[in-house]
């Protein structure tokens, strides 16, 4: 029975998905799609944790559980903020949201 499988490819896939998430955050102006890309980045981190947990034991899996909890909390609060801004501005385009620009 192989002790570990796909360590390198899984870490590589994790890096690709994280890069794509960063690309989405930098490229898109729609706040909701931006949040989805943040979720994608968190998923990529989960993949790296799971791949390395094959070597380091159960701690990696437990970190994934924590990351999932934080992602759920972040999605709930973030989407509530987007809803509040949309009620105020009638838009989720980040170009129209510049309240803090002074």
């Amino acid at each position, binding site marked *: 029975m192989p*002790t*570990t*499988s*796909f*360590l*390198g*490819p*899984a870490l*590589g*896939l994790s*890096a*690709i*998905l994280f*890069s*794509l998430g*960063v*690309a*989405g955050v*930098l*490229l*898109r*102006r*729609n706040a*909701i*799609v931006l949040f*989805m890309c943040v*979720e*994608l980045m968190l*998923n990529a981190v*989960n*993949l790296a944790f*799971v*791949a390395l*947990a*094959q*070597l*380091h*034991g*159960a*701690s990696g*899996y*437990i970190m*994934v*559980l*924590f990351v*999932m*909890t*934080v*992602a*759920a*909390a*972040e999605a*709930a*609060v973030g*989407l*509530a903020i987007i*809803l*509040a801004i*949309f009620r105020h501005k009638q838009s989720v*385009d980040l170009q129209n949201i510049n309240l803090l620009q002074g």
Partner: protein
Amino acid sequence: MTEFIFYFFAVGAVLGAVMCILQQNAVVSAIWLMSTMFWLAGIFLLLGAELIGILQILVYVGAILVVFLFVIMLLNLTRAAPDIRGPVSLGTTIVVIGLLILELAALWRYTPRRLAADIAQSPMLADPSAVFAAGDLSRQDAVARGVVGALAAPLFQTYLVPFEITSILLLAAIVGAVVLAKRKI
């Protein structure tokens, strides 16, 4: 055969992520992201993390993306104009992605043996099971007590305090979401 399945899932995940970024419609974007998360759940199963794979589907697809779709539906976004940013942002993106791809090229070649050799700082390739005893221990634990049982002991013993703090985080998130989304408090 397993390798073929892994790369099939990996290509599916990357394709889903690319389409999620490029689609103009937020609902279509969310559906593509959902496909990525399903492929990733399959990859978690292949990597021997059955519980995480199931939780991935339950939590990400079943809860988080459904919330996203609900909000998209509530906002009723009908604008079709492209919302990709301008050339400056595109240049920044290409630079950042280039750096990350370099990192990726380094990561791709990692095997357990090389990682073990790096950590043990031995010139020759070390035996991974000697350097990473914890992985084998937890694998034996999973055989003896089941996949969920093997996670229960560290979660409620070693990581008890972070686990309890997580509950406070969730409570704060619930209260925060309700307060933010309410029209008048």
